[in-house]
């Protein structure tokens, strides 16, 4: 049959082939006839009309940017809003003499982007009907001057736009983030953005860009040769972005930031029953309003070059050894694993020989004999060295991970760090060296390779407080689409249940209560007169062998101070973690008073005012 494949082929032409070619040719000719008749209609019959449309120019596209969504705090108080902003623009096509107009304009507008005597920068990709921005966000007086002298400066127009308005003094700046003009990388990643559009660059503004942005609209208008609008051919209304209701409390945030003022560090305040972030402060801070008005290059460079990294959100990006705050986890792990009981006593003489090395307790003379509750209260290192030896590194790592350490918690913000929970497998992979038994002793007191973020430690405190449920920290409670009236609620989300026996929880809580309230506790400075506070101090060494050297060391070698807490101790509702970077003092001396202040403020705000504080629904009110 046909499979016989010879080099010499017969001239095969099935009888039906030629007629079909004829049909194809006919169809093609017919199509061409249709195309030609269409061309005739467009170019000859309607040509005159379309030519004049093209000449009088015709159709213009005027875009209206969407109004960005408003961000409210948990009580519906405005955190981020929009304000009107006026730009002076020049439409080259409408200016008979661009040079003269620019010259005249410089009398009214002090600093335009075009220097006197020069002409517009040449940009062939810009249509001449499109305005060139000469001065951005001008003052009211300039605006009035331009409006009043319209005749002298033909082609100059005032364009109204909106600018993002952030709370003053950088309130919650790291959390809220900021917007900026979209760059070319972002434009290639997210289609639908045009040059000059705003996009969230950091924080909530970035992570919730899709919700906040809204949808741009515009008008297709026909104008005459002088730029006068003849009629609107089509219009798409801009859709405002959705507004966000945060879990943050504006007042508490203010208080937390005030408590941190003048220091470097972070404070995180969580609702222990939901994981709601009530406050998240990081210092030093920047002013997002600088970004909203368009940051200048030198300002940007000085922010980047600042050795204290003001742009970094220490609460979620900073990774520090947890120091003794880690002991609350270790106590819980040891009880759960059954390697000790609440009654187990160890004796501390100020150090524990291990191998050919002595592991010291922070207290030179030693603590003598203590049980677990006392060991937590007095933060005895030797007691926990014993605990660590019995637990072993793998159990330590297992429990630390159950509490949410060692990986990002998945808060709805970018750049969240995960910290490190080391174990032999980790060390083999990262450092390619075996685990040494002595390293377990460093880990159990929160030193060595262990690092955590302040947010993670706040979650640990909240988890101890609520009896073992790890909640994903929540920053956005509700997304409201004001255009359609739909509301999306975000429910509290449980990441993990640690699985703690009630006795374990009770004992660790008791130990933490004693930290603050027992005469021998290390965190007495966190005591409140009317509310029972539970907490844990931590002092994490930056380099070995500097314990207690305090403020005599250069800043970058000084210890970090930690304090984690929850309150009220008998019926917990709020958890706090505070980290002071390179404080040079211990957690009890430096961080405990800060947390005391934040807790005092929290109870003043909640107890002093409405008791149903957290239930208040916001009144949404957008002025467009």
């Amino acid at each position, binding site marked *: 049959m046909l499979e016989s494949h010879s080099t010499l082929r017969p001239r095969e032409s*099935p009888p039906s*082939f030629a007629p079909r070619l004829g049909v194809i040719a006919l169809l093609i000719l017919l199509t061409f006839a249709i195309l030609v008749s*269409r*061309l005739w209609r467009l170019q000859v019959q309607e*040509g005159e009309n379309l030519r004049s449309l093209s000449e009088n120019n015709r159709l213009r596209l005027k875009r209206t940017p969407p109004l960005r969504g408003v961000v409210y705090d948990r009580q519906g108080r405005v955190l981020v809003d929009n304000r009107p902003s006026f730009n002076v623009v020049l439409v080259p096509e409408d200016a008979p003499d661009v040079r003269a107009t620019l010259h005249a304009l410089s009398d009214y507008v002090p600093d335009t982007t075009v220097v006197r005597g020069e002409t517009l920068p040449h940009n062939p990709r810009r249509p*001449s009907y499109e305005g060139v921005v000469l001065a951005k966000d001008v003052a009211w007086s300039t605006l009035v001057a331009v409006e009043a002298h319209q005749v002298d400066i033909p082609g100059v127009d005032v364009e109204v736009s909106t600018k993002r308005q952030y709370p003053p003094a950088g309130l919650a700046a790291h959390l809220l983030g900021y917007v900026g003009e979209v760059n070319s990388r972002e434009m290639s990643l997210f289609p639908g953005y045009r040059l000059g559009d705003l996009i969230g660059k950091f924080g909530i503004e970035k992570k919730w860009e899709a919700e906040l942005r809204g949808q741009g609209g515009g008008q297709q208008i026909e104008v005459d040769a002088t730029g006068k609008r003849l009629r609107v051919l089509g219009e798409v209304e801009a859709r405002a972005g959705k507004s966000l209701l945060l879990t943050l409390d504006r007042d508490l945030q203010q208080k937390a930031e005030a408590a941190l003022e003048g220091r470097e560090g972070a404070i995180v305040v969580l609702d222990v029953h939901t994981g709601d972030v009530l406050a998240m402060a990081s210092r030093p801070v920047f002013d997002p309003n600088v970004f909203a008005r368009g940051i200048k290059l030198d300002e940007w460079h000085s922010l980047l070059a600042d050795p204290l990294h003001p742009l970094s959100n220490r609460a979620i990006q900073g990774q520090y050894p947890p120091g003794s705050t880690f002991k609350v986890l270790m106590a819980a792990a040891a009880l759960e694993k059954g390697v000790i009981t609440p009654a187990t006593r160890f004796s501390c003489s100020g150090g524990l020989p291990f191998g050919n090395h002595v592991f010291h307790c922070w207290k030179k003379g030693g603590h003598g004999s203590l049980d677990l509750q006392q060991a937590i209260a007095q933060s005895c290192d030797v007691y926990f060295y014993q605990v660590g030896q019995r637990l072993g590194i793998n159990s330590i790592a297992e429990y630390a991970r159950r509490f949410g350490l060692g990986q990002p918690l998945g808060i709805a913000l970018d750049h969240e760090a995960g910290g490190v929970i080391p174990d032999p497998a980790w060390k083999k992979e990262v450092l390619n060296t075996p685990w040494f038994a002595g390293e377990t002793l460093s880990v159990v007191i929160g030193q060595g390779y262990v690092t955590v973020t302040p947010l993670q430690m706040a979650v640990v405190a909240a988890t101890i407080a609520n009896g073992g449920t790890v909640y994903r920290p929540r920053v956005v409670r509700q997304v409201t689409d004001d255009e359609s009236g739909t509301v999306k609620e975000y429910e509290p989300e449980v990441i993990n249940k640690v699985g703690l026996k009630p006795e374990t929880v009770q004992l660790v809580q008791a130990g933490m209560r004693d930290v603050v309230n027992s005469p021998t506790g290390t965190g007495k400075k966190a005591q409140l007169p009317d509310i029972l506070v539970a907490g844990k101090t931590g002092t994490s060494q930056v380099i070995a062998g500097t314990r207690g050297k305090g403020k005599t060391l250069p800043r970058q070698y000084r210890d970090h101070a930690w304090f984690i807490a929850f309150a009220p101790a008998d019926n917990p509702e709020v958890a706090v973690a505070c980290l002071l970077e390179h404080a040079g003092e211990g957690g009890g001396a430096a961080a405990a008073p800060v947390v005391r202040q934040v807790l005092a403020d929290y109870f003043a705000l909640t107890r002093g005012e409405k008791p149903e504080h957290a239930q208040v629904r916001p009144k949404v009110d957008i002025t467009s």
Partner: protein
Amino acid sequence: MLKFDRRLISHLDWLLLLLTLMLLGIGVMAVYSATYQSGHRLSPWATRQLSWAALGLIGMFAAFAIDYRRLENWAYVLYGLSLVLLVLVPVLGSSGGGARRWIGLGFFSVQPSELAKVTLLLVLARDFHRYAPPQGYSLRELIYPAILVAIPAGLVLAEPNLGTAMVLGLLFVSLVFAAGVRLRSFTLAALAGGGVLPLLWHHMKPYQKQRVLSFLNPDSDPLGAGYHMIQSKITVGSGMLWGKGFLQGTQNRLDFLPEKHTDFVFAVVAEEWGFIGTLVLLALYCALLMRLLVIAGKARDRFSALVAVGVAIIVFWQLLINIGMNLGMLPVVGVPLPLLSYGGSSLLTVLIALGLALNVSTRRLLF
């Protein structure tokens, strides 16, 4: 090395070559005008288009010089290679406008979806040649070739590149018609095709749906695709009878047209050369297509006849979709105008395809 038969020169299909070169020349001029900026001698696009044309002519020569019977034997290898490239696109590809289509090859990048058109044509022609029932194909006999089409078409659609996937589908349907099919199968296939449309719609990206919607109702999106369509019509119409003259197109100059050097290059020609110019251009295309059909009619065997018809089919559908879009008759779908639109892969592919036709036309007298 290939032995080069001197008779290839004497029997060369000069008419086809001449038509190709003329259209190529018009294309470079149109790209030059579309991207012309006063003060610059040569736009980088025109320069690049010229070098692509040179490369394409080399490709055309290669497709011409290798005996097509050898190509028939290699058809599956070439087809397989193009599938491998298509699969690699999501892995190695670079994206543009929300879709991954290109593979970088050092100094330039290619769209494997373009090359797939030619390799698909070769395997289909081979299969339709090897098996040709006298009464035409039944539906069952078309399942295998349909799979041959579905694989590259599916990969291309996933990029997403609706235009090229559509061309692949249309190539198949038209080639089946040319190869001979029972009327019953054809009707059934057409009905099945109609059933696929809602499915296709379901899988389209929002921007693709928007284009179709705005075609059906230009007022639904006067800012986006509808705007392009209106502007394109104005551009074409404003050329009137004689055109505004070379480099004088105001619509073009003022950036009213999007993608003017690629998808809307026809509008640029229409604005500058008017009805007379477009008439000449269409006449050239028409002559090219008719010449390809004549070549098919005279071809020595079924394989080469189908290749020639297939080349005509590819050129025809792309031309219709593109010009139809430029004239506001069809939705905005990114299909380049053969030989005119800016774009290396498309140019290379069309020239290789025409090289095959030249091959067929010239060799029919050699053995």
